[in-house]
């Protein structure tokens, strides 16, 4: 029988960030991960550290995202030093570009609402076409304007995952990979984890298995009603640097390729790509940036985002099975900093009270039951 103090289920950006964070709190961590063909939302993300526009229906989510963006540089420093890898973090601000006045009006209204909800602590500015063009000369004539926010930026999500893996392994974390966890059984004290033909005994379990949480959460008295939402992304050949500012749909990555997305499709568990959607993504991209017209798409992604019913994260500690918690979100990159630096304290319950935001309860999955009932 193998033993673990903290068993993290799921080795994507969420699980790895939390695992590393717990290790830095002095915990012994074992991480359980699937094999090479797992769905892995982490592979399909855009790499944005994005705050603007999030949380219109839940301002605390805006606060949480803002906190994470704020903590990212310190997170990057610690992680880069341990792992010896440059994460290509860049937070020059980000732009959301609009192709219609109606879109612009609606978004500016939402951002204004969020600014008020956050007591003014919410930097953004609306720029008309000419001012946007002054910032990003390559935009197309169809763009009516954009909102720029100093809170936003981007990072290399692949290097982030690799750095977390490196830091985790070097820090003495145990990685058990190659198969999904079959069952988690709550015991009088702790949990029994069954996987393939082996069993582990863990004092604490943190479910970070993305879409897999839907199956695992009920085993420990929790609920994770998440569903897949497909996003397709196109990646181009390498282009000389031209776009320093990330935008919501087009971003140039460190080694030169332009990343273009993305769609939001209800496609079940099919993480393939469809040319109808690809054509629409391409059309939008060439409207936003006409100079990309002759740039070649070299590959495409279809990845399954992990979506809760309202699109906001789920953080829950189990009352029925103390020691079990569940974590779900679809912005694993933006939230990586708080997942590594704040959430471990919430999981262990041993952080100083002022280190944990007071709004964590809004992320409980209880809200779905109340919404359904109410």
């Amino acid at each position, binding site marked *: 029988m193998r033993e673990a103090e903290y068993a993290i289920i799921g080795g994507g950006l969420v699980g790895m960030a939390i695992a590393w964070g717990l290790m830095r709190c002095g915990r012994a961590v074992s991480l359980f*991960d699937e094999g090479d063909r797992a769905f892995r939302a982490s592979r399909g993300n855009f790499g944005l550290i994005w705050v603007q526009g999030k949380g219109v229906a839940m301002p605390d989510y805006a606060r949480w995202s803002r906190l994470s963006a704020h903590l990212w540089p310190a997170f990057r420093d610690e992680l880069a030093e341990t792992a010896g890898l440059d994460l290509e973090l860049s937070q020059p601000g980000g732009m959301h570009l609009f*192709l219609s006045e109606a879109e612009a009006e609606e978004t500016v209204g939402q951002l204004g609402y969020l600014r008020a909800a956050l007591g003014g602590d919410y930097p953004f500015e609306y720029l008309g076409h000419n001012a946007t063009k002054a910032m990003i000369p390559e935009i197309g004539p169809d763009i009516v304007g954009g909102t720029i926010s100093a809170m936003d930026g981007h990072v290399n999500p*692949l290097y982030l*995952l*690799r750095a977390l*893996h490196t830091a985790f392994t070097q820090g003495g974390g145990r990685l058990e990979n190659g198969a999904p966890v079959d069952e988690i059984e709550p015991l009088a004290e702790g949990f029994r984890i069954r996987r393939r033909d082996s069993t582990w005994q863990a004092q604490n379990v943190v479910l970070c298995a993305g879409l897999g949480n839907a199956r695992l959460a009920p085993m420990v008295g929790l609920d994770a009603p998440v569903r897949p939402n497909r996003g397709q992304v196109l990646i181009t050949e390498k282009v000389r640097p031209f776009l320093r500012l990330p935008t919501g749909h087009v971003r140039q990555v460190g080694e030169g390729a332009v990343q273009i997305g993305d769609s939001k499709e209800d496609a079940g568990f099919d993480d393939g790509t469809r040319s109808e959607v690809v054509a629409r993504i391409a059309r939008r991209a*060439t409207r936003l940036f006409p100079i990309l017209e002759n740039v070649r798409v*070299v590959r495409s992604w279809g990845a399954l985002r992990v979506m809760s019913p309202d699109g906001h994260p789920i953080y829950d500690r189990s009352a029925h099975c103390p020691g079990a918690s569940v974590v779900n979100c679809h912005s694993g990159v933006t939230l990586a900093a708080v997942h590594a630096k704040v959430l471990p304290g919430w999981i262990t319950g041993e952080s100083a009270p002022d280190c944990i935001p007071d709004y964590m309860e809004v992320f409980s999955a209880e809200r779905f039951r109340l919404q359904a009932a109410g």
Partner: protein
Amino acid sequence: MRTETQIAIIGAGPAGLAAADLLAEAGCEVTLLDEQPAAGGQIYRGIASANAERLRVLGTDYAAGRKLLGVLDRPGVTFIGGATVWEVTRERRISYSVGGTARSLAARRVIACTGATERPMPFPGWTLPGVMTVGAGQILLKTSGLLPPAPLVLAGSGPLLYLLAAQYLAAGQAISAIVETTPGGNWRNALRHLPGALIGNRYLRKGLMLLARIRRAGVAHYRGATGLRAEGTSRVEALTFTVRGRTRRLPCATLLIHTGVMPNLQITRSLNLVHDWDALQQCWRPQLDDWGGTGIDGIHVAGDGGGIAGAEAAVHSGRLAAIGCLAALELIGPEDRERRTAAERRALRAQNRARPFLDALYTPAPEFLDPPDETIVCRCEEVTAGKIREFVDLGCLGPNQAKSFGRPGMGPCQGRYCGITVSAIIAARRRVSIDEVGYYRIRPPLKPITLGELAAMDVLDESDGDDPDA
């Protein structure tokens, strides 16, 4: 431009041409697509315009391919050259690009005859200008009558190496050396397959004749070479290697390499078909039925693209797929199907008699599936073998995670020249079978295509809308 066809055939090599011929004869309407401007595939590349001298140098097997082109004159056959296919859906819709315009073709049945590519032969320095595949040497000879600058070294293993050497000698080309990497032990494994090969001995005779010609010409022939390394700064200047414990260095201006061919699997992979690892040929092949059926309704595979068997076998394989189509379209009855199938399968068996022997004899040397750390394995993203091993040590289990960690497979060749090596390196490092490790997830576009082309595409079964979020 047509947007619908009865039968779409992707690839106009021997399999595709033979399939088209049989189908057209039965009165079907066929659209034959090929990336090259002219039909013939790679093996019969340039055949329509080959002059007498080229035909003499290239040999009678090449010249024999000419007769396959007759199908292009048949009514009901449309040939679209310069067509780069970048997507084939399960619903048999083909997206392709001609002259910078993306087009769509809906087919009742599809036969993918994508042929083979050279298997990657990675060793330190293999990315230097002047290092090319033996296939490239053949293409330059076939399409432009070009011969490489001396000193010329041919390195690797397999019948194609000898064929090109013989063709070059017929053209009066000086060859410095053949550096053969066939592991000495292969002979022993091959011996048990020798009886079958002797029955189908045409291939053996041909092979022995090629070897005799090479020996007569006095070409230096090193056997069992290991530790290949190409030297040079801006282009290849020499090849070093070890034979029987001695290291040798051969100056060369051109280095042509070859260690076998493998099926071009981009379409079958993108359809998520099951692929089996062929231990003898050391490559994957899709699971197919007797007519090249894939299990996806209406989609067949024929020729080397379904498993390496050579050009003549490809003709019969193409015909089998065509027979399968005719039966599925109910243009022939079950008895007719059985009769015709039996004839083609007999011919295919005869073609394949020498195959196990050749496959065992020319199983690639292990150093090309597990090269030294400093070897660039992913040419596009310049990822070394050592880096892949580091990823495994970090917990990376397979090639898709490796892609995430360090970008191998993310370049424009989409894994064609690195996929098998990356999987093999991971398997060796993890001490598991390559089948367990698996292969890259392949998605369209199967060849790079511009955003403008994608944006302008008239997609057949979807209403136009600008919002990808719809």
